[in-house]
Each structure stands twice: as C-alpha cells, then as structure tokens.
C-alpha cells in the first residue's frame, strides 16, 4: 500500500563504507610539510581515523592518534628527545611507535612490548601523505614545478567542505559548470557549449586535454595574459592522480606565462573532506593577495553547489545520474575507475609512450 520512502537525507552508509575500506590502500594528504615540525605533533584524520603527525630526525611519522593507556590523543602531547610523549600520563613512544617510558612505573615499559599503530608516511609536493594500509598501491603524486626557482608558489590555507572526496575532485574537471557557476570569471553563460576533448589513462592517472575555454582577463590569474578584449581562450591539461588529487596546467600566455594548480583532497569522514591546494606560476610574483581573493571567490561559488549534491558519494551505478556525451567524458572516466577501486581492482594503466 504505502510506497517506500526514499531516505534522501540519509547517507548511503554501506556504499561509503565500502569505498572507504578500499581507499585505505591509497596515499592521502594529511598535512602540509611546512606545518609538521620536530617540536610538536599535529592532528590529522583519514576516513574517521584520527592521526598524529610528527617529525623524527627530519622524517615524518604518522601514528594512530590513540595512546594505548587511556585512549588520549597523542597529538595533544609533545615531542621529547626523539619520542612522542602523551599529555595525559606521560607515556613515551619511540619513532617506530613502541612504548619506551611509563613515568609512573619506571622500568616496566621494556617488559610491556606495547606499540601504537604506525602508518606508511611520505613527503611529496610539499605535502605529508599517509596510507592506512601497509602497502600503498599507486605512487605518491609528484609536483616537479616546486623545484623550479623561476616560479612563485602559493600554499593556500587548507579548508574543509561538507562533501565527499569524489564530489570534490570531480568539480575541478567538470567542464560544463564553468559557464554557470563561474559566470563572469572562468566562463560565460552565453557560451556554454563544451567542445569534445581527450581523456586517457596513464599509469595511476587520468589525463585530459580540453579546451578552448573562454575566460576573463579581469582577474589575477589571467590579467598577465595579453589577449585583448577582456577575454582569453584557455586550454587546460589535467593529471588526475587516482583517487584524490588533481593537477591543472593552464595554457601559457603569449610571453610563456604558465599556471598550475595542485589540489589534494583528503576524505576525513563521511561527508567531510580537507583540501590542500598549491598554486604555481611564473608571472605576477607580487600578486599573492589578489590570487587569494580570486581563490576565495571561486570557492565561494562552488561550495554551496557541491555540498548540496545528493547522494553525497557518487552513485555506485553509472546510470544513477546522467552523462552528456562529449561533455561529461572526464568525470565519467573518473567514476569508472573509482568503481573499479571500490570493487577491489587496483590495476594501473600502462605508462605513457616514450616517458
């Protein structure tokens, strides 16, 4: 008699938990390198797992954020002579996670043989990465331009959104939204048609060459690119490092201007992500303030829309949403690969020819 009510306001808990289970096998960003010192630990989170991030002899360490004694957060503790010491009762953990000192009963730590879980950790692209499994499957994303002294690099303050990792990542190479959400800055409502573009898998990445897109020059990103008339045709090359990172390379201007945007998205918990963004450019070195304002404008336009998307995770079934031929090819390929991952298939594609 009564039809089934669709619980749209409820998260697809089973679907998300399956994806999160498989995402444990991949590298995820947990902090900017420059925020992790050998003086005090910082806290991070991945898929509901709280983490303590710290540095020992210059090397980053990522522990489960849970003292074995009474479950306090180790990130509240301090780094003391190469150990991390819990704030509650002073238990000390070595760089490998082993309890080496219990101040209330000196001498018993050696006989206890207790340790906190230590996860694989790496540094790349100015970011600390962690993997919740012993054997990370795909390589850590790289950002070689960081080593180029002719570029200016802007590390944006990390920010959290109430959405899933996949919805956040897709938004970057969702080509038909620029004209609408970013009308007047990255697109024009009256020029909304998206030309066909190229999508392929290379190693653990999806690569996309797309364009040209009409952009406006009255913003710091494009004002150095002299094309006259207030608008500019942009080509965009993307590398999407599965499953959570994207690198946008926007075409150079007439004088070889070059712009890249690197975004790594950490799935913190259901409906919650943290985004680490690095922008690099070889022009307008003194325009950091303007670029920050531009970033705030663009994010402010995207945030309410992306946070509104339902279901929060991408539908398991590609037919759960509609895809416009030639327009949504990039996001469709991303979804296909995520579905493979959530089914336990972690194969990389062949490397690019001649590279």
């Amino acid at each position, binding site marked *: 008699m009564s039809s089934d*009510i669709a619980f749209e*306001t409820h998260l697809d808990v089973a679907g998300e938990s399956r994806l999160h289970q498989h995402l444990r096998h991949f590298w995820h960003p947990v902090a900017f390198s420059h925020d992790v010192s050998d003086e005090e630990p910082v806290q991070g989170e991945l898929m509901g797992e709280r983490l303590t991030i710290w540095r020992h002899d210059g090397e980053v360490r990522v522990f489960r954020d849970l003292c074995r004694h009474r479950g306090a957060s180790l990130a509240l503790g301090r780094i003391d002579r190469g150990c991390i010491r819990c704030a509650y009762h002073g238990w000390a953990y070595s760089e490998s996670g082993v309890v080496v000192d219990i101040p209330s009963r000196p001498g018993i730590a050696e006989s206890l043989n207790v340790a906190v879980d230590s996860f694989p950790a790496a540094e790349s692209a100015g970011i600390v990465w962690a993997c919740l499994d012993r054997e990370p499957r795909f390589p850590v994303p790289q950002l070689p331009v960081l080593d180029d002294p002719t570029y200016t690099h802007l590390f944006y303050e990390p920010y959290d959104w109430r959405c899933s990792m996949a919805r956040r990542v897709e938004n970057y190479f969702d080509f*038909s939204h620029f004209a609408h*959400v970013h009308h007047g800055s990255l697109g024009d409502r009256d020029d909304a048609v998206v030309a066909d573009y190229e999508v392929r898998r290379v190693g653990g990445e999806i690569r996309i060459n797309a364009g040209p897109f009409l952009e406006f020059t009255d913003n710091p990103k494009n004002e150095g690119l002299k094309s006259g008339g207030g608008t500019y045709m942009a080509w965009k090359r993307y590398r999407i490092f599965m499953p959570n990172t994207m690198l946008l390379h926007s075409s150079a201007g007439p004088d070889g201007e070059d712009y890249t945007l690197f975004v790594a998205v950490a799935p913190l918990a259901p409906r919650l992500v943290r985004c680490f963004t690095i922008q690099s450019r070889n022009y307008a070195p003194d325009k950091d303030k303007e670029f920050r304002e531009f970033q705030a404008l663009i994010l402010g336009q995207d945030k309410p829309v992306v946070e509104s998307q339902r279901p929060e995770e991408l539908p398991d079934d590609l037919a759960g949403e509609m895809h416009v*031929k030639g327009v949504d090819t990039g996001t469709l390929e991303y979804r296909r690969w995520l579905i493979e991952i959530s089914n336990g298939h972690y194969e990389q594609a062949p490397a690019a020819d001649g590279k």
Partner: protein
Amino acid sequence: MLTDKPGSVEEDLRFYKCLDQFWHPVARESEIGDAPLLVVLLDKHLTIARINGVLVALDDRCVHRGTSLSLGAVEGSCIRCPYHGWAYNADGEVIEVPANPAVSDSLSVGLNRYQCVARYGLVWVSLSAQPMFDIPVFPHFDSSDFRVISCDPYEWDCASVRRLENYVDFGHFAWVHDGYLGSRDKPEVGVHKTWREDGVLRCEATVVEPPSGKMKKHLSGLGDLITARNEYWIYMPHSVLLDRHFDGGARYVLFMTASPISSNRTKSFWFIGRNYAMEPEADHEFLDFEWDILGQDKPIVESLTPDVIPSQLGKEMYVKTADAVTLGYRQWLTEISDPGAVQ
C-alpha cells in the same frame, strides 16, 4: 555496550512510512518569492517554486549531478540548475542542456512533480497522486467573526505522530501545564466522547478548569472556575482543530498541522483564532501564553522513545478514558498503515 534507549536499536517506522499518502504543509506561502525554496518532507528533498504564477513542487535533485535545484533560479517558465545550467519546466522535464544543446530535445527524463497548492497561507504538498483525504478544513481562517493569527512555525526533534498525540493527550495537562491548562490537584480525566467522521477523528468534552490569566483579563465575569466545551477535529494523519466554547459565546480556536521532515523531526504550522478581544494589540498576550505552553511540551515530547509510535500497540500502556483518544488515533493509524491487518 550501552543500550540505554529502548527501541533505538531497531526503530519501527510503520507509522512513519504510511505518511506519504496524505497532504502535508511544507512552508508558508510568503516564503515562496522569486527564488525556489528547499523543503524536506518525509526525508525527501523538494524544490518549491512559483512558475508563471503556479506553485510547483519538484524533486530537488538535478538528474545530471545531484545538485540541489533550490540553489538555482526561476527563469521565465523554467527552473535552472546552478551547476551546469540544465533547465526544467514546471512538469520537471529537462528542456535545455546548455553544454550540448542538441541533446535537450532527445532527453525523455525529468524530475517527479507533486501536487502542490496554497491554503490558509500555507503551501501543501502530496507525494501521492491520490491522497487519502482532502486538506484539513479550517473554516475560522476566512471568517470575519474571528481574528486569526498565523503563528511562526516551530521544529521539534520528534515524530509527527507523537506531536499530534501530545495535542490531544488529556492526561498531561495537569502535569506538564500545571497552573496553565490544568492543576496537579485535579489530575483525573473525564470522559471524552470520541467518534469518526469521514477523514476526521472527533472528540468532545466539557471541562471545568481554573481560567488562565489571559481569559480572566478578556472574558468578563469569570469566577475561580470556568466551564468550556472543547470540540476537537483530528484530521488524519496529524492536523488538529480545537474550538473552545466558553460561557457567553466566547470562542478560542487553535489549528495545528504537523509536517514530517523525517522520522524524528517535525515542523508544526499553527494558528490562533478568537472571537473576543479582537484588537491586534492583544495578539501578543495569546501568543506569549501559547509559546509558554509549547516550551513546556517540547522537552517532554522530544524525549519520547522510540521516536515513532510502535506499531505493536501493546508495547505501550493505555489508561481507560484518559487515553481513549490516543488509542482511537493509533487504531486508525494501524488501519491506514496496514489495511490488511484489520478486519
């Protein structure tokens, strides 16, 4: 392992799931301006908009990328999604895909459109194409004999059926509303005549109670006790009209209609009517009194466990006469939610 909330482990939602067969209020008409409005009814997100002067209720989720359409805009005779500019007509059909205009005509997909009308200054929606009963009747709303206040709606963390029951729970007045609607010195509940009429559960009782401050002020010649004949119309599933007749012809009317947002969240729309002290300056006295009453009820009703009334009626207890209306209400809910189970 803590299991301190009985019923929280396995919630029985039968009396929630049956609610999609009825009209429900979802907003005040004044909230529907130029922009679409997001409302949630029975866990379903809906966009309410006025297109060419007509109220329209559509699924709030763009079929393309699941975006909330209520973030978009009404443009001429369509609603446009903010993300990629897909346009929907009033029937929910996709009429434009800007990124690839050629596909617009070949698409045969769209959003569900639901029945949606305005009445009593509220927007009403039925998720069912054939709702079981009509929208509740509230005749005082348009009557020049009454001054009717359309009050600010409120949301409680409770099930809509529990909200309704609280309104017609005659045993609680003496306790929760001691000194307002009853007295702990006199907690007995008299007989309430209860019967059904069409889609309405009727109930009538004459009560003798100490008059509240506002009554003393506005109804002249009152003693320490007043006599009131209370007539109730309970419109299934959870609207209630109370018409109180006092000696001398004075009448005080409350109309409350509950909207189920989810199984444990309810928005109540309500009205106060009266045929005495009709000057607008007196409104706040009646409002203050009713908000006091609501403040007394809210923590109690939000604490009820399980959230939704258990469909096995024997899981809770009933006091003869005092709970007669509650029991009559639950029996009707049982018939509605599972017609086959009742002979």
